[in-house]
């Protein structure tokens, strides 16, 4: 059974490769390369896979899942400038793809346990754009 929980955070970022010129960055990333940054209201949907425990009837304790999402993602990233305040985005370009990868890395060890695994991380950057990551295929 799949269980999905949603969380939201707001953060600003710049998408630019420091080894490239301003013109090259603008050619690749467009307005997202503006060095002063811009913000998004990110929506995160985390899907966990497992069978309901025979006694508790739960796949995963929803309160614990909420705490894990808060500790690993919302608390460290909400209202932050990702490039300047949140590792590894001082050296990794915080595209939505890289952000989803980093969120997967943070969550997987906290969620995986016998009979339960992290199945998917969906990160919406805007209402019109989201990324899905389900681990290395």
């Amino acid at each position, binding site marked *: 059974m799949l269980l999905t929980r*949603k969380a939201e955070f707001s953060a600003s970022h710049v998408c630019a490769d420091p080894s490239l010129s301003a013109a090259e960055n603008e050619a690749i990333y467009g307005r997202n390369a503006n060095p002063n940054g811009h913000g998004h209201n990110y929506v995160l949907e985390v899907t966990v896979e497992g069978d309901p425990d025979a006694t508790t009837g739960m*796949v995963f304790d929803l309160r614990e899942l909420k705490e894990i999402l808060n500790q690993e993602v919302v608390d460290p990233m909400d209202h932050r400038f990702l490039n300047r305040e949140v590792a590894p985005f001082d050296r990794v370009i915080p595209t939505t793809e890289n952000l989803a990868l980093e969120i997967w890395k943070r969550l997987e060890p906290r969620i995986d346990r016998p009979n339960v695994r992290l199945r998917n991380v969906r990160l919406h950057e805007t209402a019109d754009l989201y990324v899905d990551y389900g681990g290395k295929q």
Partner: protein
Amino acid sequence: MRLTRRYRFSASHRLDTPALTAEENRRLYGKCNNPYGDVPELAAAVPTTENLASAIRRFLATEWPLAAQLHRVRISETDRNMFELETGK
């Protein structure tokens, strides 16, 4: 091709399992364990949304009248969480 139709319903539930003590139930389920008055002595399963999804899939599987196959049951408890069951899993 898949066709999805959404239905909404409201119901109350209390999470409590006779397999655990009152204190253990409070710790495990927190606010979801608050009593609402009379509690049925024996329930077949704790009405978590997981178990609700399983029950809905079972009901649909036994009464399914369509030629098209039932692929998935998805149930949202709040706008922040949902549970999905695919047929045959």
